[in-house]
């Protein structure tokens, strides 16, 4: 599955999970997804790109904050519910304290043009981080059983539906998601028949 040659690592304890997710969250300005991908797949090497996309698929389809769902599932994968709790607590605790402190101080600085400009610049970079991460994850589609042409059509359609047509996410997931899953189901038929006989 993985396109890298190094073997995957795993966290040594719940504490390591908590610390890793705290540090990861603290780097995530304007969204944590880009940092999560870099830390979990490249620095810690706890997940392959493919596993990251799979976990993110559940995080997207289920209700709730995507990155929090990702933290839960990654934690659960290594240490069960204790790991899930450690990862989620790491993701939330320190950032919560910081954001409330900023809220308390915000009214004094909100109208300052330097602060407003800095926020604008950070917003532009945050948008770039998520696009760059998406570009990187495209390589995770190479092993996809649907094949490159079908993946390309689905990716472009979903992008146009959400970015230009502004369809509600629920309809994109239900509509295009169902088409994609049925197609994948058909392409997996041969493999699964073989696996069923083997198992």
């Amino acid at each position, binding site marked *: 599955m993985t396109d890298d040659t190094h073997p995957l690592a795993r966290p040594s304890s719940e504490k390591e999970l908590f610390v890793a997710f705290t540090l990861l969250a603290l*780097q995530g300005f*304007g*969204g*944590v997804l880009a940092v999560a991908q*870099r830390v979990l797949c490249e620095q810690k090497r706890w997940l392959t790109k*493919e596993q990251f996309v*799979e*976990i*993110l*698929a*559940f995080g*997207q389809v289920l*209700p*709730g*904050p*995507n990155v929090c769902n990702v933290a839960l599932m990654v934690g*659960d994968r290594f240490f069960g519910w204790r790991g899930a709790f450690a990862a989620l607590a790491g993701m*939330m605790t320190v*950032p*919560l304290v*910081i*954001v*409330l402190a*900023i*809220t308390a101080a*915000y*009214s004094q600085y909100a109208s300052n043009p*330097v602060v407003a*400009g*800095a*926020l604008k*610049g*950070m*917003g*532009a*970079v*945050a*948008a*770039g*981080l998520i*696009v*760059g*991460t*998406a570009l990187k994850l*495209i390589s995770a*589609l190479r092993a996809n059983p*649907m094949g490159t042409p079908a993946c*390309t059509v*689905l*990716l472009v*359609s*979903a992008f146009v539906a959400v*970015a230009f047509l502004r369809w509600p996410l*629920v309809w994109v*997931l239900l509509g295009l*998601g169902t088409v994609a899953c049925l197609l*994948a*189901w058909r392409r997996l*038929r041969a493999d699964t028949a073989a*696996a069923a006989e083997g198992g």
Partner: protein
Amino acid sequence: MTGAMPLSVDLLALFAHFLLLSLLAIGGAITVAPDMHRVLVGEMGLLSDVQFNASIAIAQASPGPNVLFVAVMGYQAAGLPGAAAMLAGIMLPSTTLALAAARWSHARRDWRAVRAFKAGMAPIVIALMFATGWILSAETPGWRHMLLTVVAAVLVWRTRLHLLVMITVGAIVGGLGWV
């Protein structure tokens, strides 16, 4: 920033409403922001429009998951108890469901349906990330803003430059009024 906190805020009603919103928040808590606006600004009158928008902006500019905007709204509406009630409400149902779903699917990871779901959703998940970047970028017009976004995207894609370095450069460039 609220000065005197409203004393008569029904924390239980807030908590209950956010429990419900949690299960509707496919795509993240921000997708149910319109309904939060209806309740907090409209029905209950706990926040002004400016406070509502500022809550989202503050959370996006702060480190950590964007869902923390719910805690900022709760804090502005009813202090720390408000933040606790609303954040707990928005998190509890979705986290429980996510954990249950992760275990269910992991136990059945060899099932064709589970494998088809993961394979089928992969291109759509990546498309949603592109769309998020596009929407964030399109909110603020101007070619210099767009250029900054494109440069950051290429650097993330092609280099291992630290993400915080890029965010810091963005803050400096923006603070100098160049974006």
